[in-house]
């Protein structure tokens, strides 16, 4: 029960008026950062890090982690309203969130997203409170082979579920892999597929691809349909929050499995992106409404948002306990810890109890404050869709350009964004699914890297992927997920034959 004494002490620290003020400022800044494309959580925290140098470490981490929560909340807003995910883990939120907005249910989608985020984070932080030492040990088990198996599982649980023709899915995903491979090959340190163009050194960043494929592509589709932003009919209903809340408990199973997936992915540390895709994929398969996913199902918003937030929160644990960042934002926070003279590592929990438990307490309160702030703004956000398209359209274009530019401060990327936009329009009209391509761009190079690191360690033997219980189990799960469709059709055919 010592932990609880620490936790209450932590609450006492966080509840000082100064810290509560920092918390609110942090959440608001975070939401703004999450909404502005390109200025994602990692960038935002990095930019604001120097501001916190004059604060005490505990106050600083409270503010910075609240920026992080705010950015996680904010990422969902643009995904749902404009089909532009500001962060990799918001991509899966667009699949059902944006169709909901088009049907005039933006308020419901936003409420569902924010509430699920909160539940995911809460679940993760409770787990951190109770299981911190155990979890850190689990994270140490993850070498390159284990990491690859997690990526493998993420791919397998996501593919083969769409209604699109299978070879179009395959082509789309492979193009994503090819784009992810451009640039420096991190294992050998050689450049590849750059054809001598220095603009391609960086490869194709996920954000630029996504802003183009989803954001610009959507604008072009809207133009084709004659300027009407389909969400315009959205009625602003201040009671939308209550009404959505009444519906949410129905999806407790999806929420729970997404929480578990998220925590596991955050700790492992594969991160929030595979978590959101994986849990969307699994929810689609296991839910009764699975077949309707992609047409604007609340459940399709609940699953990825819960998992992403659970993963984002639990990713902080390996950072504190091991010094390994589970996400880019965590990496920046890690730098911050070092600057404040704190060394993340196994001893941080012992030596800096005030700091650690202050942070954990701020996770509880920060998320609660964040939820209240963003929920009160739901009608406001939904009202953005009432702005006529001939105003909001070009403004979105400009913000997409800014987002694409700020990723690497490169004007070339702005041009690439438009290329991706036209590509997105074309592919969507030709019935190619875009999600597999985006998944491959986000995870492709990481998966390849882990695969090759594993082979280096095993000296070329593929047996490394089944060399111990952990990695073997995950790979096995992946294979089951991959052939799930076949298994299912096999069963139903069998049943038909019998019948």
């Amino acid at each position: 029960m010592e932990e609880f004494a620490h936790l209450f002490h932590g609450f006492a620290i966080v509840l000082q008026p100064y810290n509560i003020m920092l918390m609110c400022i942090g959440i608001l800044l975070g939401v703004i950062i999450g909404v502005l494309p390109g200025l994602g959580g990692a960038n935002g925290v990095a930019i604001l890090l120097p501001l916190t140098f004059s604060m005490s470490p505990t106050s600083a981490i409270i503010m910075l982690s609240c920026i992080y929560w705010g950015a996680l909340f904010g990422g969902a807003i643009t995904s749902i309203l404009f089909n532009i995910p500001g962060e990799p883990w918001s991509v899966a939120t667009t699949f059902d969130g944006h169709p909901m907005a088009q049907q005039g249910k933006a308020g419901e989608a936003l409420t569902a997203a924010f509430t699920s985020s909160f539940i995911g984070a809460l679940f993760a932080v409770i787990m951190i409170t109770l299981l911190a030492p155990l979890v850190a040990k689990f994270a140490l088990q993850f070498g390159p082979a284990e990491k690859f198996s997690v990526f493998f599982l993420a791919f397998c649980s996501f593919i083969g579920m769409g209604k699109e023709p299978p070879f179009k899915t395959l082509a789309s995903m492979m193009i994503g892999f090819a784009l992810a491979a451009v640039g420096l090959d991190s294992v050998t340190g050689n450049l590849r597929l750059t054809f001598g163009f220095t603009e391609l050194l960086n490869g194709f960043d996920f954000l630029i691809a996504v802003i183009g494929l989803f954001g610009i592509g959507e604008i072009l589709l809207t133009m084709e349909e004659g300027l009407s932003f389909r969400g315009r009919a959205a009625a602003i209903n201040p009671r939308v929050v209550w009404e959505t809340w009444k519906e949410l408990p129905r999806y407790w199973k999806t929420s729970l499995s997404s929480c578990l997936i998220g925590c596991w992915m955050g700790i492992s540390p594969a991160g929030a992106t595979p978590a959101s895709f994986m849990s969307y994929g699994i929810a689609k398969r296991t839910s009764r409404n699975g077949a309707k996913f992609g047409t604007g199902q609340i459940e399709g918003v609940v699953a990825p948002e819960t998992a992403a937030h659970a993963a984002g929160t639990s990713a902080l644990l390996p950072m504190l306990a091991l010094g390994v960042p589970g996400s880019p934002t965590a990496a920046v926070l890690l730098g911050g810890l070092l600057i404040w003279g704190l060394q993340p590592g196994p001893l941080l929990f012992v030596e800096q109890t005030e700091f650690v438990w202050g942070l954990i307490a701020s996770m509880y309160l920060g998320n609660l404050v964040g939820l209240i702030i963003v929920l009160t703004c739901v009608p406001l956000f939904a009202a953005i869709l009432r702005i006529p398209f001939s105003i909001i359209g070009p403004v979105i274009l400009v913000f997409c350009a800014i987002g694409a530019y700020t990723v690497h401060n490169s004007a070339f990327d702005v041009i690439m964004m438009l290329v991706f936009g036209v590509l997105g329009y074309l592919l969507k009209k030709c019935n190619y699914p875009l999600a597999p391509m985006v998944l491959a761009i986000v995870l492709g190079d990481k998966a390849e890297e882990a695969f090759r690191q594993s082979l280096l360690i095993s000296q070329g033997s593929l047996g490394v992927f089944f060399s111990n219980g952990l990695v073997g189990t995950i790979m096995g799960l992946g294979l089951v997920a991959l052939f799930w469709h076949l298994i299912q059709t096999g069963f139903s055919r069998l049943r038909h034959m019998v019948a």
Partner: protein
Amino acid sequence: MPPIWLVFVAVAALCAGVVGSAHAAWQPNRPVEFIVPAGTGGGADQMARVIQGIVAKHNLMPTPLVVINKSGGAGGEGFLDIKAARANPHKLIITLSNLFTTPLATGIPVSWKDMTPVAMMALDEFVLWVNAESPIKTTADYIAAIKAAPAGKMKMGGTGSKQEDQIITVAIEKILGTKMTYVPFRGGGEVAVQLVGNHIDSTVNNPIEAVAQWRAGKLRPLCVFDRVPLPVTDKIAGDQAWSDIPTCKSQGLDMEYLMLRGVFMPAGVTREQVQYYADLLKKVRETPEWQQLMRDGAFNQTFMTGAEYAAWVDTEEKRHRQLMQEAGFLAAN
């Protein structure tokens, strides 16, 4: 009475004089971009952000210092950006050893001669680490273990490919006349944790990347790749301090390697502009925050500016070319 225009001319001249003298000691008049040719959260990025924080906290500059990461192509993107910003006095870059290794390994057309050296802030040390539970207790044990194992059996983890960590690995292989397997990871922290998790056998982490795991009794330092032991005598793990780690040379691994943490500007800037930043960085070094960082990371605190610094960089570049050539890391073209 003098014609009115004469008065104007006189006033204008006076103003010009005042403005001119203000400009004699050059100062930045717009935000200064501080390029980091590496990703967020790494060693160079941390140092850049500490400098940014110190400059902001102590009001050392009239305009803000803005950190920008350009990590593409092992940092080549950042160097190309500085190369393209010729004569722009509002751009700085912090470099690590990739200033030398990236152009050699990838063939990206940049060299330090496309930039103006401003100041060397510090040199980063390298320490040979093993897992604390490993039977290897000393450098001699380590050498014996490598020689006893079949070639390629021992796995060395490091940051990046064909960069400092792998250069040191190849040098060790050459000294011992055997082969190890080098496994590249993305960041130093990740490398240290892979060693704690026993996925690899040894690392050559920088002190700051592995110190937390050392303090927690998870890792064991064997030797430091410097000419003399480290100066920091604060106790870290039990009664051991950085200064208690012997040099690798004294233990039979004759290799020295230090990594540059230095600041450069684009080529074609004026001497006053370089001098302004050199003075600024000197002030940064005197702050307590900087001293704290140096102690935490057990940095080698050599400071150089001007011709001395340029000469040092030149020697290092030649040395890297030789090391990389011996290791077979030079780009094909």
